[in-house]
């Protein structure tokens, strides 16, 4: 076990690369929220992923313990697994959000169609009234609006 741990202990270089990458994702997410290019509700999982992955990368004892609990012989795989789980969660979250957007889109669309129709009817009615007005003053035959 001891030997296996030594063999798979993350190199400092690997740690730095992974940590820098995760911190970049974290900062990028924050920056996008700040610029309002990303809504908080869609960013939470990205932030959570960064926050969970950082200790796993930097704190080898923790990674070992979790790997042991999960029965994963090769500890770096735990990091990969965690990342994959977050990716699945984020994707699922997107699917749900997309469905909700579609529902709202349809509702708005039906409302627009209804208002289009009402507007059309109103315009026809106004045209008809104007028509009959001028018909009354001009003595012209009543025209049907349209």
């Amino acid at each position: 076990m001891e030997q296996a741990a030594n063999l798979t202990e993350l190199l400092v270089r690997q740690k730095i690369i992974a940590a820098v990458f995760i911190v970049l994702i974290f900062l990028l997410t924050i920056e996008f929220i700040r610029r309002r290019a990303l809504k908080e509700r869609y960013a939470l999982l990205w932030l959570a992923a960064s926050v969970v992955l950082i200790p796993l990368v930097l704190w080898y004892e923790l990674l070992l313990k979790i790997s042991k609990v999960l029965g994963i012989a090769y500890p770096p795989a735990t990091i990969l697994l965690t990342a994959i789980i977050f990716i699945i969660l984020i994707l699922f979250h997107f699917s749900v959000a997309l469905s909700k957007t579609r529902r709202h889109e349809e509702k708005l669309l039906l409302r627009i169609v209804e208002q289009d129709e009402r507007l059309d009817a109103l315009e026809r009615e106004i045209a008809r009234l104007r028509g009959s007005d001028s018909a009354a003053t001009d003595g012209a035959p009543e025209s049907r609006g349209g």
Partner: protein
Amino acid sequence: MSERDRPLYIVPAYNEGANIAAVIADLLTVAAPTEILVVSDGSTDDTAAVVRRTPVAFLELPFNNGVATVLKAGFGYALRHDFPCAVQFDGDGQHIAAEAKKILAPVRADKCDIAVGYRFGKSRIVSSKARVLGRMLISGFLILLTRQYHADPTSGFRAYSRRAIERFARDFPEEFPEVESIVLAKKFGLRLRGEPVTMRPRRGGKSSIKFFGSIYYMIKVTLASLIMMLRRY
């Protein structure tokens, strides 16, 4: 028949510029212009222009959505204008206006909430074996789900009662509207019934079902219907 018994004819049309004028002319033989509503599903051809030259009511969806949204728009219109029943009538010319009374009769007599017209006699089209098998399987599956035999669950020639209109204006299945709506009707406690009608062979536009393999279509319909049974409304 009193004035208030008159249905709204809802005509879903997607790029039916070639057929829609004939369909409207056919409908005008049985209905007044105010009783005909064409709903264009974001057509990109001249459907809108053709319909606007006729006296019938017209709604245009700003982009393509599918039959479910079209029907919701139509049902909403029927409710706003206080129609007691509605007929769904395809814009591609395969349905015959004079046949509508056959599906309307049981709805008006309050024998059912939805009457589905199915092809009957000589108007039956020659289908591929896979299609026939697919339809048989869907029918069998629907018997299991609804304890009722449906001769042609994919038919889009239907009459709806006021109750059905009210319910379906809020929820109408999106993926496979024809088949799923039968399952949904059962779930909503709406009474369904099939009526034999004469139909023309398809002309102009193509059936959307043609694009999928029939069996693949059937599997998807089955899955969607099962999920529908589990859904909360």
